[in-house]
């Protein structure tokens, strides 16, 4: 108790210096957490991916489609328990800046593979019955004010034309990391139109999503599916949904690496600032350390005092940085809308922030502690007066 009181009093000795150091820590820990959250948002799709879902796409490239006829053959592969499909739609809602993900899906077979999308049964039924119907995620509905019964006009880009979709349901996510910034419409509706306007593009699928019996069978089943279509005009590449999502992330990996580096540079800088603060404090207190040693206090007490003060400052700054991160991340998530469908501070990020603060506190205390414990009593006492 006495030592803790001494640590707190020492920390508050130079209020301006302490305040500025804490301010620096708050900014650094906040920035570190925010950058980690951005990285997490980047990987959110992959993190949320199921282990029992595979994605089958054209082996040449994702931009090349697969025939609709593959569905039945994939379904026949042992271990496959469900098959759905989806096409990236990419329509424009009023203005190109209103970007959000849109998929033309196979309906019930697709939704069955994603139980994470929570849709009331009546809304699900209404959607499945209405070929021009659509369902939107909660985040998207909140952002654009979509309600059940609303008509969403989309201007097609990949699939030219004006598409008027009726909102038949609004789905929530079973977890906070579930992407609810998406719109789903019926592939049948799109395909029907294609048959009339561009028959060559009809009956072509972007990706198949495949539910399997056991996660450990993923490699075997993937290989079996791809074997089924080897030497065909449209060979397939099947991988887990996670690997598929990570494939997208890897396209922008350089940015992620840059963000990661910056987040650690921020910590290194604040560690240097903090070390300087602690070194200044220790230099000013050499006489006091010498007095304590003369009175009989050993290196353990001096270490506890200096390390305690350093950790107190760094953890206090970290606590403030963490506290302000949550509302700011929530605000930023709203502002960025559908750019990052999932933008939230994870428990792991908070743990990383605390560990970073601990590391800063420890590193900053090393030099002053060594100096204090090694101070010659006679020399130190001479510095007073």
């Amino acid at each position, binding site marked *: 108790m*006495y030592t803790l009181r001494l640590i707190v*009093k020492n920390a508050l000795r130079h209020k301006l210096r302490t305040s500025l150091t804490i301010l620096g820590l708050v900014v650094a820990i906040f920035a570190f957490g925010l950058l980690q959250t951005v990285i997490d948002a980047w990987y959110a799709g992959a993190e949320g991916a199921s282990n029992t879902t595979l994605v089958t796409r054209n082996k040449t490239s994702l931009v090349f489609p697969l025939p609709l006829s593959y569905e039945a053959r994939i379904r026949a592969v042992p271990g496959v328990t469900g098959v759905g499909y989806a096409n990236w739609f990419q329509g424009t809602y009023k203005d190109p800046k209103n970007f959000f993900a849109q998929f033309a899906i196979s309906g019930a077979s697709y939704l069955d593979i994603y139980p994470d999308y929570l849709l009331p049964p009546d809304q699900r039924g209404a959607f499945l019955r209405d070929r021009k119907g659509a369902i939107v995620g909660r985040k998207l509905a909140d952002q654009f004010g979509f309600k059940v019964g609303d008509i969403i006009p989309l201007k097609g880009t990949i699939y030219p034309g004006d598409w008027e979709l009726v909102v038949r349901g609004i789905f929530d996510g079973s977890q906070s990391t579930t992407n609810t910034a998406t719109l789903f419409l019926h592939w049948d509706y799109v395909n029907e139109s294609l048959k009339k306007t561009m028959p060559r593009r009809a009956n072509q699928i972007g990706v198949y999503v495949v539910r399997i019996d056991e996660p450990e069978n993923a490699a075997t089943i993937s290989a079996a599916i791809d074997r089924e279509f080897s030497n065909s005009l449209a060979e397939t590449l099947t991988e887990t949904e996670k690997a598929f999502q990570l494939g997208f992330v890897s396209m922008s990996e350089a940015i992620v690496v840059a963000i990661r580096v910056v987040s650690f540079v921020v910590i290194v800088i604040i560690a240097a600032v903090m070390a300087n603060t602690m070194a200044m404090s220790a230099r000013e207190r050499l006489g*006091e350390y010498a*007095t304590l040693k*003369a009175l*009989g206090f050993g290196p353990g007490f001096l270490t506890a005092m200096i390390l305690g003060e350093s950790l107190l400052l760094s953890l206090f700054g970290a606590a403030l940085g963490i506290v302000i991160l949550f509302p700011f991340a929530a605000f930023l998530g709203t502002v960025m809308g559908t750019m990052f469908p999932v933008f939230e501070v994870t428990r792991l990020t908070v743990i990383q922030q605390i560990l970073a603060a601990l590391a800063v506190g420890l590193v900053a205390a090393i030099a002053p502690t060594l100096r204090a414990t090694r101070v010659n009593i*006679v020399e130190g006492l001479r510095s007073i*007066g």
Partner: protein
Amino acid sequence: MTEPLVLIEHLVKSYRRGDQVVEVLRDISLSIPAGAFTALMGPSGSGKSTLLNLIAGIDKPDSGVLRIAGLDIAGMGETELAGWRAANVGFIFQFYNLMPVLTAFENVELPLLLTPLSRRERRERVALTLEMVNLADRMDHTPNELSGGQQQRVAIARAIVSDPTLIVADEPTGDLDRQSAAEILALLQQLNQQLGKTIIMVTHDAQAAAQARNVVHLEKGELLADEPQRA
């Protein structure tokens, strides 16, 4: 015949300044009995503070015998010496050396952290000691809220709170006005006469030295003849 509290024989101490070795104490032999109030006098650079530091166990001699209460403190390791100081030596410094962030009470309590006393016992003892130095009403004040004389009284309270055998005082009145100096010297005399504390005080103030029961003169690192002990 019982051994004196402080027994010094042929003590030598030198410092290295750059390439030069400066001999600060040369062949010092001295004995101070328990219960003495000894003043170490001499001009600047005579080695009196160095001798006090050696007796207090915060510095080590190059050679010679240095025994306190029969213990060879020159042969002790750092940790052992720190423990010995905590139990046996009370320090009084010229500039008080109080912790500026702690109250008078907390400053006096500091040495007791090294004892097995409970918090309650510590508090009782600190209160009693502050009463002895007439500072009970200032116990919640920090050093910068106290006068120089009051700060030195807090330092004296800190020096005696753990009931050490030996009190070493390095120019205890050097930073004080006449009246405060007289009060501090009276307090030291009281500690010596009433509590039987052995006090060794470095001073170059003849008036301060006159309060001691015997005076040891040093010059250029050598001991001059002792003045006879006063009753």
